[in-house]
């Protein structure tokens, strides 16, 4: 790693250095690399080897999300319109003060911009953006639900969040004329509130919200345009990618090995890792995260294998049966996507890191990291990045900002 960096510096200045050539003095080497003129996009492309090119193309361009087979109504426009209406409806909260959009604010890229949310009560985890959530296999930090529609019930039933409950949602759908009409258009039946019908109505309402959320997709970032150009061999288009972002990308897929967890076009392996980010309160991790999330998703009657799934024998249902539990999952959080990360500060499951620079600094030094147990997962080692390298990685992360969400999707539809 060190010698690769030094060689890059040497190629740029064409002046051999005994220290760098021997890769013996890391600090002197890093200093020389920092003082050398950074390489341009064209120079970096000239030096791109086949393995690195293949690694870059694993990340993009990002295609549309896979359909959720457990929600037969996900692609229905009528369901999505009803879901959008519900998403912005404050009557989903017990006291009528809050809607889904209160924490997932379109102006804040469908997040809340806070470390931890403030609503009817305080919940323990940082609010995730809904944008691109449709790409995830496991939803939320703990993967405690396995579909967008089943996630709706988390805030709906939690008295610290919306608190209206499934029966309350069914009642709202049945009693409000606009919502009832939208429900009939989407599902070909009237909403019901008696007995089991209330639960079925609430599930369909949740599936409508999921159909709307599945449309909140942000792709076509500068990185996607670069990946497409690289794939097509369009050199002119590839050279439009900023040099600092490309240097950051080469670190990302190279010596920094961020790709190990932030894998694939979503820049997330969709899995769970305990990386030891310290909590503001200090001490050992108090949130079980995946340890309890796995048990929760398995036990949920609204999971992919349950009676409300539209494919209870499908691949997702079978996957639930194969999940490996265990004590090692304590404190493991789902790898977040890096797409649009610059728009969704702060970071980590407690929002404990305020900026992208803070996140990169943590990975560079692992300062304050909670050590894993004797047998615990140990994915990270300090990257010890230079200041220019940190800046390049941040430039790369900013190149993952995709197209904005269309304005009509950022408000309640007209009655």
């Amino acid at each position, binding site marked *: 790693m060190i010698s690769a960096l030094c060689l890059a510096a040497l190629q740029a200045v064409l002046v051999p250095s005994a220290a760098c050539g021997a890769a013996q003095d890391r600090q002197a080497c890093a200093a020389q690399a920092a003082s050398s003129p950074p390489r341009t996009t064209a120079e970096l492309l000239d030096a791109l080897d086949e*393995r690195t090119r*293949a*690694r870059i193309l*694993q990340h993009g361009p990002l295609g549309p999300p896979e359909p959720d087979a457990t929600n037969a109504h996900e692609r229905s426009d009528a369901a999505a319109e009803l879901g959008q209406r519900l998403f912005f409806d404050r009557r989903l909260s017990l006291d009528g003060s809050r809607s889904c959009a209160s924490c997932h604010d379109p102006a804040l890229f469908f997040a809340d911009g806070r470390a931890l949310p403030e609503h009817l009560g305080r919940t323990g985890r940082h609010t995730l953006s809904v944008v691109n959530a449709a790409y995830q296999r496991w939803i939320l930090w703990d993967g405690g639900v396995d579909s967008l529609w089943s996630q709706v019930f988390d805030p709906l039933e939690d008295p610290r969040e919306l608190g209206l409950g499934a029966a309350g949602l069914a009642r709202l759908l049945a009693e409000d004329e606009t919502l009832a009409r939208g429900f009939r258009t989407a599902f070909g039946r009237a909403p019901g509130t008696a007995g089991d019908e209330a639960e079925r109505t609430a599930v369909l309402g949740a599936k409508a919200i999921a159909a709307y959320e599945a449309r909140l997709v942000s792709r076509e970032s500068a990185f996607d345009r670069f990946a497409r150009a690289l794939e097509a061999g369009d050199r002119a288009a590839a050279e439009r990618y900023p040099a600092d972002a490309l240097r950051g990308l080469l670190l990302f897929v190279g010596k920094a*090995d961020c*790709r*190990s*967890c932030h*894998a*694939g076009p979503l820049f997330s*392996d*969709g*899995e*769970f890792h305990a990386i030891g980010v310290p909590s503001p309160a200090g001490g050992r991790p108090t949130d079980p995260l995946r340890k309890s999330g796995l048990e929760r998703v398995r036990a949920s009657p609204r999971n992919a294998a349950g009676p409300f799934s539209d494919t209870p024998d499908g*691949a997702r249902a*079978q*996957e639930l049966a*194969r*999940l*490996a539990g265990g004590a*090692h999952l304590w404190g493991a959080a789902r790898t977040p996507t890096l797409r649009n990360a610059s728009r969704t500060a702060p970071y980590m499951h407690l929002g404990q890191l305020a900026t992208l620079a803070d996140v990169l600094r943590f990975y560079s030094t692992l300062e304050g990291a909670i050590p*894993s147990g004797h*047998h*615990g*997962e*140990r*994915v990270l080692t300090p990257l010890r990045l230079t200041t220019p390298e940190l800046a390049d990685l941040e430039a790369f992360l900013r190149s993952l900002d995709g197209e904005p969400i269309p304005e009509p999707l950022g408000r309640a539809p007209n009655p």
Partner: protein
Amino acid sequence: VSRAQRARQPRIERARAALAWTALARTALTCTALARAALLGAALAACRGAAPTPTAAEIEAAAVRAEALQWDRVDSNAGTYVVRWRALPLLERGRDFDLELFVEAADAPGVPLEGLALAVDAEMPEHRHGMNVVPRVVELGPGRFRVEGLRFQMSGWWDLHVDLTRGPWTERAQVRIDLE
């Protein structure tokens, strides 16, 4: 006849006698070999006459073995077993795959291996974690297994462990896989 010639005479006679004995022995050996060949031929002819036509299962097993010999090979760590394996449909990061395995005793190739139990797991030694799923083992026949539902969630160095148990003894075969 000189003294020297007289001195050599007994040696020549001894050599002649030895040659005669060698010829006799050769004749005897040839006869024995011929007899053995005749017996073997008769035995083989008898066997051929008595052997039943191979069953469909035997033909299939032979075809499976012929195919498995083309797969990747790994020997168990103590050398008792030869494991041949392949991933289906593909071994890619973040994608479910199955394994097909064909196991033989190293000292009895081609002999169906009865009574073998197999377990598969995988870990990332550098990360100190394994897979997030538990695969399911299906026995297809003696020494033949399909392991369903593996998933390598990360790129990097994986060790695939195949634990082979027969009676009280378990032996491990392991494969290093560097996943891009």
